[in-house]
């Protein structure tokens, strides 16, 4: 009997174990349901046939604008241009219907068509964006008008719209970057402020090289620049009008050094570091002068303040814990909360324009990194690693970070680099010479 019982148990256990395999799939009401939880991260293939010459001899502009739009999109690393040699059909008219099948055949998932007309010294650029595989136009067609000399800006604006319609977030192509242009030997560098398009084009200089300049920062409207100058022999904070290149010192107390300025989100106030009596703390003041307010009061060094997008908080670096770490405090000062706890030293924090991330420079184990973390210090991610990376600056849409990378050795020189917040698409920004301290402007109006 015991043997029979054992055999019975064994049979029961076996059938129980096999039952899930033998049982039919559960019947479910409604359509078949599946869930996809992982996909791929790849650049989206797009095609930008040469824009049509819509009159006035705008052929060159049409071609150049189309090329610049393609370069902007491909430069993000989020898109990949399908070469024109692969095209099956061509766009002969801006109004002609799109042969979707031909574009699907070459796996162009987005198609941008456009036309440019010239009248006098003005250009008109019109364009459309198509989702090739759904056979639908993404949004309505748009057009921009401007002087022929501003064709690059119009191309950037077209690229911004295309970028926005495909990714769902605003672009950053129609923006500018202020930076420190450097020249001369490493031990006797001459520095001046330069301003350029985000892609390195149209460089202009805002100051001469007679005095050292550091850390330029755009105003929220992009028409002013704060920076630190050694013009008086001591570092002082200046504000410069971009249009007129006129400047004035915001702080000029003798024996005090002011540096690391940054605008408040509303552009009315400036937060900066003030070093006096061997101690460095954070202060704020009105852009037009006056209204000075101390935010920190500690024997340690507090510097590199940056407002949150809503202006409610300030993130800054401090060595009050013994090592350089990141802290957040109210925009009115008060108790600060430490948010960085990893190994190494953290500095130059910058709040993302989206408000969800804080970019920073990290030095650890002899290497420098550009990284991001949540505002509570969680989810820290290091995006770069090199001999010297520092000074991150956010793109207007909070998707890209531009920073300074300096190469090693006596011949080492700083250069500007950009990287996607995912850590991909690390690119060097082309400049005429060595450059450092980039600061991204908001989108131009």
């Amino acid at each position, binding site marked *: 009997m015991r043997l029979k019982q054992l055999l019975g148990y064994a049979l029961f256990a076996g059938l129980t174990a096999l039952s899930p395999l033998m049982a039919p799939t559960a019947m479910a009401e409604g359509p*078949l349901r599946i869930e996809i939880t*992982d996909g791929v991260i790849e650049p989206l293939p797009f095609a930008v046939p040469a824009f049509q010459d819509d009159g006035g001899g705008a052929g060159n502009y049409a071609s150049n604008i189309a090329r610049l739009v393609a370069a902007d999109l491909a430069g993000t690393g989020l*898109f990949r241009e399908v070469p024109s040699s692969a095209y099956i059909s061509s766009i002969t008219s801006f109004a002609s219907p799109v042969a979707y099948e031909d574009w699907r055949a070459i796996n162009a998932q987005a198609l941008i068509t456009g036309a440019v007309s010239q009248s006098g010294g003005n250009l008109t650029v019109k364009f459309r964006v198509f989702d090739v595989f*759904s056979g639908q136009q993404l949004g309505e067609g748009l057009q921009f008008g401007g002087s022929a000399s501003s064709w690059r800006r119009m191309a950037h604006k077209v690229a911004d719209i295309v970028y926005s319609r495909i990714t769902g977030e605003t672009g950053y192509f129609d923006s500018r970057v202020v930076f420190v242009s450097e020249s001369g030997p490493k031990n006797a560098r001459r520095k001046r402020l330069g301003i350029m398009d985000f892609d390195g084009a149209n460089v202009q200089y805002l100051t001469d090289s007679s005095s050292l300049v550091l850390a330029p920062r755009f105003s929220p409207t992009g028409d002013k620049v704060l920076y630190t100058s050694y013009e008086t022999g001591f570092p002082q904070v200046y504000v410069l009008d971009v249009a007129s290149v006129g400047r004035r010192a915001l702080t000029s107390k003798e024996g005090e050094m002011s540096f690391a300025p940054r605008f408040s989100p509303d552009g009315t106030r400036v937060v900066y570091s003030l070093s006096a009596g061997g101690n460095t703390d954070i202060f704020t003041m009105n852009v037009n002068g006056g209204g000075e307010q101390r935010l920190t009061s500690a024997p340690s060094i507090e510097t590199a303040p940056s407002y949150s997008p809503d202006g409610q908080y300030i993130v800054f670096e401090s060595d009050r814990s013994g090592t350089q770490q990141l802290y957040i405090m109210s925009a009115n000062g008060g108790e600060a909360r430490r948010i960085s706890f990893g190994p190494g030293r953290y500095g130059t924090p910058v709040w993302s324009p989206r408000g969800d991330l804080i970019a920073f420079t990290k030095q650890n184990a002899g290497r420098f990194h550009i990284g991001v973390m949540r505002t509570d210090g969680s989810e820290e991610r290091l995006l770069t690693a090199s001999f010297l990376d520092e000074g991150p600056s956010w793109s207007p849409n909070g998707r890209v970070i531009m920073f300074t990378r300096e190469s090693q050795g006596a011949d080492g020189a700083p250069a500007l680099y950009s990287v996607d917040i995912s850590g991909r698409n690390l690119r060097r920004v082309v400049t005429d010479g060595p450059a450092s301290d980039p600061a991204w402007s908001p989108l131009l109006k």
Partner: protein
Amino acid sequence: MRTGLYISGIGHGLLFLWLVIGGLISWSRDDVPLRVSEVSMISEDEFAALTAPKPQSDAPDEAPAPEPIPEPAPAAPEVAPVPPARPEPVPDPEPTPEPTPEPPAPEPPAPEPAPQDVPRVAPEPAPEPEPQVEVAPEVVETPTPSPEATTAAPEEVTPTAPEAATTEIVTEATETAAPTKSVRPPARPDRPTPPVVAEPATPETPTPPANSAANAVANAVSDAVAGGTQDVPDQNIPEGPPMSRGEKEGLRLAVKQCWNLGSTSSDALRTTVVVLVDMDRNGKPTNIALQSWDGPSQGAANTAFQAARRAVLICGRSGYDLPAEKYGQWRQIEMTFNPDKMRIK
């Protein structure tokens, strides 16, 4: 634990007993032929007495001996006593010729190879597929040379051939509901009776326009009828058994390789969208609609939906590999795109 020991002990014991006793049993079976012990020792005198004086008178007596010879199996033991008379194998040649005339008796087995010949014949008509059926009649015809039967046979064969030709049409009608909607089905049954209908039809040849008009009306009516019975094809959609896990996984893998989130916003990466996909019988998506979404904004949902739609369309360009017999199970698919694992963290 002890139960196993008992089982092992009993098993080994039985095996041992079988080895010992089983062998004896098998030997006992072999003892039967040892009954050769019947071979008794005969002296030379006795042998001479048996052979010399009464050979002729005994010979006819032994004549009936050949009769038992037909029994092939017991023949051996009876031959055994003969060897003592080894010098005279005379009786042996006698029985041997007797079995030779008996081979006619094994002729009945001859019909057994005959059915083997049938397949040999079959390969001959094999090159002609249809004549295979005719092979049997041909074999039958050879033994029955009757011209009358041949005339009757073709009549029976001809009706079968046309039926085979029309089977294709029948299957088309059954597989698709299209014939039920069109006028063709009623027209085809008329074809077998063209000789009857053709006679009245030929006089009407001068009025072809009337036919076209009638056809047009018939088409219109059939179209109307077809329009009213649009649900019929739906009823013919094969439901089949539910999709297996493997089939679902295959579909999921096919879609996910085209779900590209490389160009979507971070908000879209935090948005889960549920799309409803209509499929045709070839496994190609025909319609994709956003059913619901869960994320920070409508704009992010639109972007996430665009990425999902591209994934379904691009990888479904040539049709997804789905079981046709289960079309009813997957003609509409609810796909949930959850980018939680893809999010930049």
